[in-house]
């Protein structure tokens, strides 16, 4: 880009547009699915009017159940949201996990939701399981954004690490092993890599760095929170 001493407003906006346009967007969802979702919403809205008379009693019941069961994850078709992550099932069979850098991970919820999305995963809290030798193909199964090695990733506070999974690329007999460790700083470290289901060992010591997988940290660090990440082979 040519840079001048004083750019006009339009030139600045064009440059901003170009930068934002460099972010690749997913293909739009099927319009039929969107319209079906809209029809459900319309029906729901209409039926909601008729149901108003019983809403008060229903609310009391729901509040009671929530107190017993705890807050439920917010779910939309293909999407699982919790306070600490969002997991989206893509139409091409991949799944995308976006981490909220300010929240501590719930290992049980993560394991349950990954498995529900067809990603063979074993999430352990306070330990990390690995195979020696590690199965090959981690980089075909997992993509990490922003790239942990990029200066952009290192500089960001509050960036949401995004991990894309391709379950179809996982070698037979393997799983993704996630180990979530509570650090003295109050943050969490998460390590993950591929393991052979038939041969792995677990350790309660947080790995120093990812030789064959990836690592990130989440949790409170101040007003903005932050996530740091690194990735091995």
């Amino acid at each position: 880009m040519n840079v001048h001493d004083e750019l006009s407003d339009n030139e600045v906006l064009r440059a901003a547009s170009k930068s934002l346009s460099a972010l690749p967007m997913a293909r739009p969802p099927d319009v039929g699915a969107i319209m079906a979702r809209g029809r459900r919403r319309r029906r729901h809205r209409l039926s909601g009017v008729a149901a108003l008379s019983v809403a008060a009693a229903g609310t009391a019941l729901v509040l009671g159940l929530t107190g017993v069961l705890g807050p439920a994850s917010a779910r939309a078709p293909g999407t699982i949201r919790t306070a600490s992550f969002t997991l989206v099932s893509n139409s091409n069979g991949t799944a995308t996990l976006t981490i909220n850098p300010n929240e501590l991970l719930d290992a049980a919820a993560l394991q349950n939701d990954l498995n529900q999305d067809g990603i063979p995963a074993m999430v352990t809290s306070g330990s990390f399981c690995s195979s020696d030798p590690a199965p090959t193909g981690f980089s075909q199964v997992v993509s990490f954004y922003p790239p942990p090695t990029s200066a952009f990733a290192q500089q960001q506070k509050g960036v949401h690490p995004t991990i894309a999974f391709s379950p179809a690329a996982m070698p037979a007999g393997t799983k993704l092993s996630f180990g979530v460790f509570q650090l003295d700083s109050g943050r969490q470290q998460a390590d993950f890599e591929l393991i052979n289901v038939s041969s792995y060992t677990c350790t309660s010591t947080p790995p120093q760095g990812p030789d064959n997988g990836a690592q990130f940290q989440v949790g409170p660090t101040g007003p903005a929170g932050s996530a740091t990440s690194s990735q091995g082979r």
Partner: protein
Amino acid sequence: VSDQQTEFADFFQASWEPCLRAVVAIVGSLQLAEDQVAEAFAKAWASWPKVRRHPAPRAWVVRTALNAGASWWRRRGRELPLADHDPMASGDLDDGLDARLLTAICRLPPRQREVIALRIFLDLDTATIAGQLGIEAGTARMHLSRGVTALRRELTPTNNMEAGQ
């Protein structure tokens, strides 16, 4: 297929990407934005007779998407994390000017970011932007001006030289 279905499908195909880019720029997360924009288009179809007559239907979708996101965070007892969050970066994005500019956009105050996103991706004038955001036109112009000034700093030769050192 009815005329309205065809009309909505055409609107959807033409508007999905600009609406999504605008929401990504504002909320700072591609995944959240995709879900919120999909929900907003579903709402648009549920109210299509009204939305099709709207003076700026794409702006209606973006506003609805942002409201959906805000509602979701309110339900969870959280504030929508606009100010302190940066957008998802892409592996295809280099670490140069684009990344710095992206970071600068995301560090703008939320209202400035909204005004700039609506201007860039929906090509709205400040009066229409003001109407969509429920603010005075003069206020929208002020947010736009301040936002542009902040972004200009990232584009000055001084900053580029420093970044290259």
